[in-house]
């Protein structure tokens, strides 16, 4: 502190830079900044790759694109992965808009998948297929909703911290799945559930992934309208912005919290259904695959707008799949692709700072003394 004062008395302590909040920026300019951020992220990750591995940067980019779009199968995988990630992001969004930080998407997806798998294993040979599907849908949606409502209920009544609570629920779900993987293991003792023969969703028009795409398109449209034009969506915004205002206008805050989070969990549960019955036909601890967390970024990057989420989900999946191809090509391990995806996310989130603030330097006149 003494140094400060000395510095002040010698008149060299004037701050040279300061951060200034911007006025509302034109959307074109904001998007230009975001675009620059994405390009910089690509260049930076190429640079990192080149420095670490000595590979030709052209090769890096071509591998990136190849990994995402190279073959028909890869393109479909890109679409499928995007649709699943988007689904989870859409599920989290109403809760986020209400400032309820649902970090439990992972667990809600898993428990939905668990419920699906349980129906397929236990009822698969007992019920006719249409009825089995119905039971699977109800069970998965209900399981996801219940998993989310437990923390919501505690939040509404005792104002517990939902971030920690939903996070903890993830671990319970993961361990539950681990437990049942032992119980239902085929063959016994292997610790894994093999392909479950009954209750698999049929491939639409011979395409295993099409169902997901249809579901997610419908869900995106629904969520956009729900949040923007419905009375429920309005209540969610009011509760999120200010609980006091909600009380003032007579909104039952507890009810809105529980209802919204139940919806959030229900959609997550449905994602579990799509994963287990639609594509994987089995379940492991990794079925949700971290999407519950990645979806948080997708939702935030899109500023909770369901339409923008299509792009943010696509971008993240593109980077992820592209980076995996780069990794394979360079014979590195999985961590490397995560570094590259991490760089992209850092740049995209970081660029929001430059949209909201600018750095101003001070004009100096003191040199004259």
């Amino acid at each position: 502190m003494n140094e400060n004062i000395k510095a002040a008395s010698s008149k060299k302590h004037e701050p040279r830079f300061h951060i200034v909040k911007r006025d509302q920026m034109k959307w074109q300019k904001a998007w230009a900044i975001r675009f620059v951020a994405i390009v910089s992220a690509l260049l930076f990750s190429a640079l990192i790759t080149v420095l670490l591995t000595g590979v030709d940067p052209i090769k890096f980019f071509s591998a990136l694109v190849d990994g995402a779009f190279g073959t028909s199968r890869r393109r479909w995988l890109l679409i499928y992965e995007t649709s699943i990630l988007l689904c989870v992001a859409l599920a989290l969004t109403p809760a986020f808009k209400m400032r309820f930080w649902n970090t439990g998407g992972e667990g809600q997806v898993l428990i939905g998948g668990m419920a699906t798998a349980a129906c397929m294993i236990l009822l698969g040979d007992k019920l006719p297929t249409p009825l089995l599907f119905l039971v699977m849908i109800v069970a998965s949606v209900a399981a996801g909703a219940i998993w989310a409502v437990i923390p919501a209920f505690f939040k509404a009544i005792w104002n517990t911290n939902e971030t920690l609570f939903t996070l903890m629920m993830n671990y319970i779900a993961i361990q539950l799945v681990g437990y049942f993987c032992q119980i239902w293991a085929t063959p016994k003792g292997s610790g894994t559930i093999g392909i479950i023969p009954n209750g698999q969703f049929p491939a639409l028009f011979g395409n295993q992934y099409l169902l997901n795409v249809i579901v997610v398109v419908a869900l995106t449209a629904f969520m956009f309208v729900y949040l923007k034009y419905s009375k429920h969506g309005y209540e969610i915004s009011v509760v999120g912005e200010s609980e006091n205002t909600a009380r003032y206008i007579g909104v039952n805050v507890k009810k809105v919290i529980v209802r919204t989070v139940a919806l959030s969990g229900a959609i997550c549960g449905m994602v579990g259904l799509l994963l287990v019955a639609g594509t994987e036909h089995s379940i492991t601890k990794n079925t949700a695959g971290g999407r519950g967390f990645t979806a948080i970024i997708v939702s935030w990057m899109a500023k909770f707008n369901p339409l923008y989420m299509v792009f943010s989900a696509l971008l993240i999946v593109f980077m992820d799949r592209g980076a995996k191809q780069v990794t394979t090509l360079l014979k590195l391990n999985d961590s490397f692709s995560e570094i590259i995806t991490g760089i992209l996310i850092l740049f995209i989130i970081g660029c929001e700072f430059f949209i909201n603030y600018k750095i101003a330097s001070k004009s100096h006149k003191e040199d004259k003394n």
Partner: protein
Amino acid sequence: MNNVPAIELRNITKRFGTKVVANKNVSLTVERGEILAILGENGSGKTTLMNMISGIYFPDEGQILINGEEAVIASPKDAFRYGIGMIHQHFKLVDVLTAAENIVLGLKGSFNLKKAAEDVKRIAAQYGFEIDPMKKIYAMSVSEKQTVEIIKVLYRGADILILDEPTAVLTPQETEKLFKILRKMRDDGKSIIIITHKLHEVLAISDRVAVLRKGEYVGTVVTAEATETSLTEAMVGKKVDLNIERSLSANTPDRLIIKGLTCVNRDLQKVLDNVSFTARSGEILGIAGISGSGQRELLEAIAGLQHIQSGEISYIDPNSGVLENLRDKTPVQIRDLGVRLSFVPEDRLGMGLVGNMDITDNMMLRSYKAGNSAFLHRKEPRMLANEIIESLEVVTPSVSTPVRRLSGGNVQKVLVGREISSAPTVLMAAYPVRGLDINSSYTIYNLLNQQKERGVAVIFVGEDLDVLVELCDRILVLGSGKVTGILDGRSTTKEEIGLYMTKSTAMEAEENTAKEENADE
């Protein structure tokens, strides 16, 4: 005495962002042994300017000279080094510590609390403060806390004192006491800068007045040569009519009857204690009291937002004369009873409106539920928004501008406009002019008067006693949650209200100290 001013500001400019210029080219001087009042409306840059002298902000351009030498004040520590101390509007004290502990808190080196307490007593005696250095902050009244803040600054050797709106929280009697002390300090050679927007106080205390308008320095006048009208003109930039019309309604039937209302907070302390009164149609009932005396709780209890421990709230329907019980009803249930109760809460953007929503969406806060559709109808709210923008002259780029981007006065017009639009029979407004400039304030007073003339029972919680005395038909005074008096607005004076305001707090304070002493034994 030499002629070098204690502080000289030269061409100070401070910007926030690109558009907001909080201070533009301000140059002024503060002499030794004088009280300079800085006068200006809210948002005119008074506090920003003072924050630059006390090291909280750093000017973008310009120089500050202390005792004739250029000073670089980059932190509050630097400011103290130059002998500058600021007493902020919101106190910065640790509740569980004593006055003496708070005063030495943050000083370097070891300290002797006993000696500190003696020093505090010596300073207090010198200027006529009343203070007990060993009293804990939480047991103190607002004016005592302010005393601690002032002594804290003096203890650190400040001879330039800046007081930001020091009288906002004081009763007229306490204000008079503070002014006496300030005069004594001035006579002792200290320079005092007092920020305020209350004209009569400026005239009472200051030697000179520096006026700011929209961040620009208008000029300095010698107080003896100024009048309320001339200062207002300088401050606003045009002539303003400072009279509030008060009509006398011929017919004032009872509208809202409160009997024995008692509410407790989370710590089970009574925030409202056996409150009884009647609000009448065609009348403005003022509610006065030191802030935090139960005003907010009272209005929220009536609006159905507070848990009520005991008592009755009854509403008399103007058409049928039927008595409706409002106690333990939610806002929605009250509305469903057909009671048109409007409420302009104190916290405009945190309760009355949603800052991030646009004007249209804020219009439908109260009405969005109407109808069976699951979807919102934005057509009528948009029309209402346009109507209010036009009739109340709300300055806004468009109806789809988020309300938080509007200025304080315009935010309040949107809120009051919405609440009036439902043709209320009871209108409650808590501090509706706080933070508003003079013109907007008078717009709000006029709106309240119009409602009164339409036969609305208006309940107005205010802090400016001059306004309460001019505007209200009756004034209810709250002290620590109790009704200490209901006065006739036409015959009472603000001194009388001031006496009633402190009536029960004085009793409380005595009780508190008695308790403390008992606990010590």
